[in-house]
């Protein structure tokens, strides 16, 4: 027992502080495969309840697709359960190289390296590629994993206001003396669901000799006409120097991520990126599943088209009902409530109505920007969305927020 009572008390106090601040996160136990309808036990130990899932990153509905499950099973039979190794010792199978090649082709890049997760890709890539003489200029709303990656790197760091191209240009001018300048952005921003102005970013990168880094985790597989991502949507395929993305969302939803881009950058990651060098290889079952996903979505755009249709229905329905939403075109649709407690109460009432969605508030989003983040899936059928919309309207009426402006909601509930 190394943990003496006094130390335990310190840790307990920290946990109590988190509870008192209303920031304590509790897991919901799901007793079913991932899908548009799931069985949830919440609070833990309570009876299972069947609910419509409106908060998964399962954009293409492939997490439990029979072809993907079958491919994973085949992978288990042919290549085993685990590799008990990092990639460069004895953890690289033929299928890992196949998956890297397929991702390169899909994303339209020069080369790809797999990581255990996109979190690992983002925390590894900057340190591997950049030095003290370089600068990283990041959009202020990039994902937390990028923030961690930037902190680990030796290069100087700076930020620009969210999607503010004038501010970005000022920062590029300010850092004109650096060896390398890297503009860092998400493709689709996970909390607001808006898309980066990637065409403008590429223009500025060309004007000021900067590289472009894109985390396309919330876009790969469904943004763009053939689902290649934000770079396809913005007409800049082949012009992004570093793309990181995940296999843990639309592309099967299991785990794994990658860095894809310029050959030299990928090779530097193979030589120097610590999460690649010191973490286990992706399990064969996941690799085979991901290969099947890429096959499926390369053959037809049926699933991303259905997702687009579902997104259109959902956004239109919420606006017509009188909700304040963050407008855009992605399947991430935040319903704005502004007040933290209201977002929690609203989510609780939705759960009672058989709808599973989560309220987000500070520090996950800025103060006064509390919301219910809804996410669409190709696995949703129209009857799911109709039921979910009816529930949102019922709860919205209860709190009197329909047809109210942002200011009116803030006056009613505070920020």
């Amino acid at each position, binding site marked *: 027992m190394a943990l003496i009572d006094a130390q335990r008390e310190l840790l307990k106090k920290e946990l109590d502080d988190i509870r008192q601040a209303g920031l304590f996160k509790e897991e919901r136990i799901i007793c079913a495969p991932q899908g548009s309808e799931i069985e949830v036990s919440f609070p833990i130990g309570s009876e299972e309840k069947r609910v419509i899932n409106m908060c998964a990153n399962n954009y293409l509905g492939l997490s439990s697709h029979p072809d993907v499950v079958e491919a994973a099973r085949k992978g288990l039979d042919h290549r085993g359960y685990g590799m008990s190794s990092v990639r460069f010792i004895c953890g690289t199978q033929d299928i890992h190289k196949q998956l890297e090649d397929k991702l390169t082709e899909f994303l339209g890049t020069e080369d790809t390296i797999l990581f255990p997760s996109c979190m690992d890709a983002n925390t590894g890539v900057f340190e591997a590629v950049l030095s003290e003489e370089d600068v990283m200029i990041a959009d*202020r709303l990039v994902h937390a994993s990028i923030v961690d990656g930037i902190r680990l790197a030796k290069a100087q760091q700076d930020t620009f206001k969210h999607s503010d191209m004038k501010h970005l240009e000022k920062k590029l001018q300010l850092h004109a003396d650096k060896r390398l300048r890297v503009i860092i952005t998400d493709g689709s921003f996970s909390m607001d669901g808006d898309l980066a102005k990637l065409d403008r970013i590429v223009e500025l990168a060309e004007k000021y000799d900067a590289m472009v880094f894109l985390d396309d985790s919330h876009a790969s597989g469904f943004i763009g006409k053939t689902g290649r991502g934000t770079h396809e949507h913005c007409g800049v395929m082949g012009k992004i120097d570093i793309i990181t993305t995940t296999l843990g969302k639309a592309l099967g939803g299991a785990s794994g991520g990658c860095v894809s881009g310029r050959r030299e950058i990928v090779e530097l990651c193979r030589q120097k990126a610590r999460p690649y060098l010191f973490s286990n290889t992706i399990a064969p079952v996941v690799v085979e599943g991901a290969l099947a996903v890429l096959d499926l979505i390369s053959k037809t755009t049926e699933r991303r088209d259905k997702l687009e249709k579902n997104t259109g229905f959902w956004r239109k329905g919420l606006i017509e009902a009188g909700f304040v939403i963050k407008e855009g075109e992605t399947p991430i649709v935040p319903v704005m409530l502004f007040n933290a407690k209201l977002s929690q109460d609203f989510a609780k009432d939705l759960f009672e109505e058989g709808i599973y969605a989560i309220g987000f508030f500070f520090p996950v989003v800025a*103060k006064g920007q509390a919301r219910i983040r809804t996410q669409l899936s190709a696995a949703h059928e129209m009857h799911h969305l109709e039921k979910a919309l009816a529930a949102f309207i019922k709860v919205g009426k209860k709190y009197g927020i329909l047809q109210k402006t942002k200011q009116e909601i803030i006056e009613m509930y505070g920020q």
Partner: protein
Amino acid sequence: MSDIKDVILEYVLEEYLEEDDDIEVDYDTPLISGGIVDSFSMVSLKRFLETEYDIRIPDAKATPEAFDSVNKIVALIKEFGVE
């Protein structure tokens, strides 16, 4: 010190607030604990102070607490001889 205060306040408003932000910021408004400046973006504020007043603020002194309001920032840079 009012000039320095105003220079810093103006920089904070320009650098960190969005056009549609309806937040009022004065000399004592909590910047970091108030969620206006995240610790990640604090770096540009530090560099602005170093360039504007020709000082070097060691990382150990550039804490979120020391940068938490315009008045606290003024107190910090006074330690480096800025008047």
